[in-house]
């Protein structure tokens, strides 16, 4: 190796799943806001009690929605096409992550990780990021963030979306039971979407402050500069 500081961090399948996800989640969020704008209120339970919404707003601005003008039919077309892409990509990622031990080896926190939670939080707050051997692995906060997205938010947003389908509700009535009604499922779907958006914002901030070019390159080419020689 010409430069031993540079390690191969992200295999091709992780990188492609990541960028397919970027496209899917961007379209899903923007078309989702378009769909939400058709009735910009949320409720809890089976039905919409129009006089007592949980939240009611006048709608999201056009720059945040796909299409940009009020156009529910087209918003649904975008949403369902990329929802299938998101699900297919998620299945592709999960199967390979399990088969190759990525989940167990790289994402499941170790005992050592657990003991370092406090330290890791302090380091993050000081915007000090691991270098050298430490930078060869995800840190414990990264692991928790990624696992929450992969194992909680993504499955939850998909099932909450499916629970809004009257066709599926007939056969799988447990979908309604899990969420406490179709309108609750719609609200959970919305909360998950904004939790994912919050994750993406923090994720992008971390990318920015921990070396934007190095991070970006490693997610495109796989190669990451750990900042110190190793081995």
């Amino acid at each position, binding site marked *: 190796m010409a430069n031993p500081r540079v390690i191969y961090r992200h295999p091709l399948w992780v990188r492609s799943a990541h960028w397919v996800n*970027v*496209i899917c989640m*961007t*379209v899903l969020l*923007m078309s989702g806001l378009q*769909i*939400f704008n*058709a*009735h910009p*209120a949320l*409720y809890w339970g*089976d*039905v*919409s*009690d*129009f*006089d007592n919404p949980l939240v009611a707003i006048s709608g999201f601005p*056009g*720059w945040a929605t*796909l*299409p*940009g*003008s009020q*156009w*529910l*039919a*087209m918003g*649904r*077309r*975008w949403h*369902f*096409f990329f*929802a*299938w892409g998101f699900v297919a990509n998620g299945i592709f990622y999960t199967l390979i992550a399990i088969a190759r031990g990525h989940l167990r080896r790289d994402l499941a926190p170790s005992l050592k990780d657990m003991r370092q939670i406090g330290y890791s939080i302090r380091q993050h707050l000081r915007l000090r990021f691991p270098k050298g051997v430490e930078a060869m692995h995800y840190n414990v906060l990264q692991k928790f963030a990624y696992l929450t997205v992969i194992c909680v938010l993504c499955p939850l947003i998909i099932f909450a979306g*499916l629970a*809004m*389908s*009257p*066709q*599926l*509700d*007939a*056969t*799988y*009535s447990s979908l*309604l039971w899990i969420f406490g009604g*179709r*309108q609750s499922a*719609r609200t959970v779907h919305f909360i998950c979407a904004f939790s994912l958006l919050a994750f993406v914002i923090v994720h992008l901030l971390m990318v920015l402050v921990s070396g934007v070019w190095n991070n*970006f*390159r490693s997610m*495109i*080419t796989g190669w990451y500069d750990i900042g110190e020689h190793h081995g």
Partner: protein
Amino acid sequence: MADLAKLGRRGFLTRVGGSIGTLMLAGCDDRLSENPDVVRILDGAEAVSRFVQKAVTSKTALAREYTEAEISRDFRANGTTEPSDPDYQSLARNGFADWRLVVGGLVVRPGSFSLAELKEMPSRMQITRHDCVEGWSCIGKWKGVRLGALLDRVGPHPEARYIMFFCADVMDLSGTKYYESIDLDGAYHAQTILAYEMNDLALPIAHGAPLRLRDERQLGYKMAKYIMSIELVADFTQIGNGSGGYWEDQGYEWWAGI
């Protein structure tokens, strides 16, 4: 050498970033959504949703039914609430005594039925949830003739695939009246009824008097109101703009199971 490689990579990344930016801008000004090729590709998802939903669901599973206590006090009316058509208005003034449901197309015994005749046929009462494509839901109690029983009465031809509903409500300035279609799986489902009662009263005009469709496993726009005639067809490519319904011709999915 290394600098060159780096430059190449930077150039590539800049282009990727630029493409994503362009895509988002294009999305914002609706250009992509108006491109017929893009629309055709996106439409592929509807066939996938329909195929998968049919494959993983039971043909006979019933939509959840609710209790009297759960009926919505304020059931929002979807679509038209007061048809302007003069012929419809004169029928309504007379309490629909002169209204007859015409059933024809690919059937052995075409005919027409008065409201009284329909009420004598096998009926079903159900308290179900109505899901509007806009996102809201309401619960209502419906009573009506089972569509399957009506179809058995007229005898569908083997080549009949879809049930078309032609309605009295005018949807645009050129006078297009509402039309919708469902397939035979939907038509013969136990909860698919032509409702003439809502919440124990005669179906109100706002909700589609004298007769509306209830297909409890699809979204609200499938459930045609103010039904004047029913036609069994092999395909609907010659009707309206050929997508099977008024809203379908405006770009909504024919398959409204989600």
